């Protein structure tokens, strides 16, 4: 099954060959996740920023949460839990570069979900988190 985010990644790669001019917006990425979520669960009733915030701060049975590195206010810079390297803010309000490249979004959800949950995140979980991040104002 080909996900909408994958299609967006592929389309974005074709469009941006040799340049970075046609980057996606957080809203476009959210729409792709919405299509994936609808396909995964026919009863899909929209993303929830509140669920996203809970998910972001939960440890999911392991040592880390998303907030471990990104802090519980992701408009602020974070710190890598093992290397100590500074992490630029994750919320678009704190960093307009975030959620503008479908390939980067896919790469980091893949890696970080594996680190925090030891599995891939569902489209609903990703969309909830993005909904919360997008809801954070300046």
């Amino acid at each position, binding site marked *: 099954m080909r996900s909408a985010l994958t299609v967006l990644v592929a389309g974005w790669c074709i469009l941006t060959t040799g340049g970075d001019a046609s980057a996606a917006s957080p809203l476009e990425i959210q729409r792709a996740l919405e299509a994936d979520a609808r396909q995964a669960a026919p009863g899909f009733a929209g993303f929830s920023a509140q669920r996203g915030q809970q998910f972001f701060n939960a440890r999911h049975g392991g040592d880390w949460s998303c907030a471990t590195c990104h802090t519980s206010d992701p408009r602020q810079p974070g710190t*890598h839990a093992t*290397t*100590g*390297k500074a992490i630029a803010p994750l919320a678009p309000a704190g960093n307009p570069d975030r959620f503008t490249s479908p390939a980067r979004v896919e*790469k980091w959800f893949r*890696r*970080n979900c594996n*680190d925090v949950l030891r599995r891939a995140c569902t489209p609903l979980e990703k969309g909830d988190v993005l909904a919360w991040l997008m809801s954070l104002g300046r």
Partner: protein
Amino acid sequence: MRTDAPRRDPRRTAIGAALGLLAVLAVAGATAAGDRDRMAPPPNAAWKTECGACHLPYPPRLLPARSWRAIMSELDRHFGTDASLDPAQAAEIASFLERHAGRERGGAAPLRITETPWFRREHREVPVAVWARPSVGSPANCAACHRTAEQGDYDDDTVTIPR
């Protein structure tokens, strides 16, 4: 390429030769600069961006090719985190690392730079307590003391050990 060489426009050939000479000079310049601090490889954007996303992009010559090969073959289990890349990018970075890797000594291919005899020798005067300081964190944090590490310069003169 070679088969259509005789049919080339001579002006183009001259421009090509000039560009080629410039490229050679640029590489020679980069090598000379690299020799000074002994760490700076010729720049590779993927290496810098991808490795540098989570930690300082460690200079390829700090580990032998066999070590880099092992590290790059299990990026999804990279020192406790998933650092997986798409296969094309992983291949490009692996080839860069192996091309500029250090020499293999005594048949050992350690996975951690801090476990190489070279690293231990170079840092033998650093007291254990220094590594544990919050301002340093771990021996993997080169830039804590090597203030110009990001530019590939690890010269002793640029070292300042933080309090």
